[in-house]
């Protein structure tokens, strides 16, 4: 094997991509050629340098943002023409006669709807302009435009002759109001604590953060920091609570996050906030917990920051 061939094989050798005989040939050449050995050392040093660089993970809030955007894109995709084509094209190809009949029926339905539209408009209940009520009792058959999900019971009353229909209906409701409005605030606290979609929880959290001095809101933010299953939401809760007035609950929640959070990013952000807090306030109640972190935490950054905080407070690190 010549020096040029060895030079071309160095990367493949280091990445273990050579066959056994090629590997042996390279090693034989290296044993007797100092300049190639030098080149090999250089290549190894470079790879070691690159391997020593941090393998960074995407920030949780970026992942949350991407997931949220994707959900919205997929919602649009499901409702768009692509979905229609994807669903109907194979069926139409398999059953052209049925497809033609279906198309005719759809066209007929549209035409009929167009013809009767003016008359129907005069008898349909007008929902616009009426105040939305999420829990309103619907009587007399007026569903106010709500969509029926299921009907669980149809029972005639023999005495009155009336029909009793039990159904499950849903209606899109938009509520408006400032954060001072207790209904709005309660809804947002509910969304933050219980709603499935992390994107909605993140939006709610950002909006609630504008009034984080309110005790109910602060409790909800602390709940998110301690219990939300999404690291991005926990991180945002930590940033938001950090802007509010500190008290024992906040300090405990931050310590808990610094000690136990599953996500290293959240833990480091929590310890940063604690250090910033003690550097201005000198909260001595935190000393034992910080000493514990300084001595035993598995993360070096957390240990260093804890020591830094203790030093600023004039306390021994251990």
């Amino acid at each position, binding site marked *: 094997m010549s020096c040029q061939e060895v030079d071309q094989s160095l*990367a493949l050798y280091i*990445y273990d991509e050579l066959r056994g005989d090629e590997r042996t040939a390279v090693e034989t050449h290296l044993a007797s050629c100092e300049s190639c050995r030098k080149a090999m050392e250089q290549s190894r040093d470079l790879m070691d340098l690159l391997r020593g*660089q*941090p393998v960074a993970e995407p*920030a949780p809030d*970026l992942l949350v943002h991407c997931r949220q*955007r994707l959900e919205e894109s997929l919602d649009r995709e499901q409702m768009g023409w692509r979905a229609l084509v994807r669903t109907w094209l194979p069926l139409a190809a398999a059953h052209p006669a049925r497809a033609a009949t279906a198309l005719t029926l759809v066209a007929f339905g549209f035409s009929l709807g167009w013809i009767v539209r003016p008359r129907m408009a005069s008898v349909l209940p007008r929902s616009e302009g009426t105040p939305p009520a999420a829990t309103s009792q619907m009587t007399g058959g007026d569903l106010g435009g709500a969509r029926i999900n299921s009907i669980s019971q149809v029972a005639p009353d023999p005495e009155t002759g009336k029909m009793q229909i039990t159904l499950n209906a849903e209606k899109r409701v938009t509520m408006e109001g400032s954060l001072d409005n207790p209904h709005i605030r309660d809804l947002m606290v509910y969304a933050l604590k219980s709603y499935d979609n992390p994107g909605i929880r993140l939006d709610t959290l950002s909006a609630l953060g504008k009034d984080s001095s309110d005790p109910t809101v602060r409790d909800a933010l602390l709940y998110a920091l301690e219990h939300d299953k999404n690291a991005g939401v926990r991180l945002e809760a930590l940033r938001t609570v950090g802007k509010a007035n500190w008290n024992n609950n906040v300090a405990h929640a931050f310590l808990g996050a610094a000690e136990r959070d599953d996500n290293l990013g959240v833990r480091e952000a929590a310890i940063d906030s604690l250090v910033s807090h003690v550097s201005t306030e000198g909260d001595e109640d935190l000393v034992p917990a910080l000493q514990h972190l300084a001595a035993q935490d598995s993360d070096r950054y957390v240990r260093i920051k804890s020591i830094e905080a203790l030093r600023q407070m004039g306390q021994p690190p251990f």
Partner: protein
Amino acid sequence: MDGACLELAGKLPADGSPVAGAEETALIRQAQAGDRPAFDALVRQYDQAVLRMVLRVAGSPDEASDLFQEVFLKVYRSLGHFRFESRFSTWLYRVVTNVCLDQLRRKKTRREVQPPSTDDGQPEYFHTLADDRAALDPHRSLRSKEIAVRLAGALGKLTPRERMVFELRHYEGLKLRLIGQMCGTSEETAKNCLFRATQKLRTELRDLV
């Protein structure tokens, strides 16, 4: 191919371990039948790994987010064509590779890749990363930042294909045989790309070693 695919699966995030074969197959079939929750579950198995890959070739979080959308919308639209002839992870990463290659080519035609940098010279997208371990060791912090900037510049000088082959081999740990398939080329071409990529990096970064 299986051995290489297993290696790929091993690169998935620890908290989202790959679902067992039968379970994943069931999810794919449900998703192919239009079951959106099944598709969402499938996405959750891989989205963190995909985001990590696209973030490496993107110049900013916004760009990474766009690429992320492009990948999974392509997967959503073409999942019906997946015939279980390869592992789903291989098929998915082929989509990721193509999207990344297209993006790198678009960038090359516009200008040389120069990651946007902040006041301290650190590429901007590193600030969006939660696991910024350079900060964990204050003594190495400065040097690590310098290397990151130099490395980003050196990677920007590779051709799109050299860049993808290097990223997939060095950071994702995939074998060149599989990388060749993902890039729509041969193992031999992938070997040449890796050789040229490492040569260029050696030249660009020789004063650091």
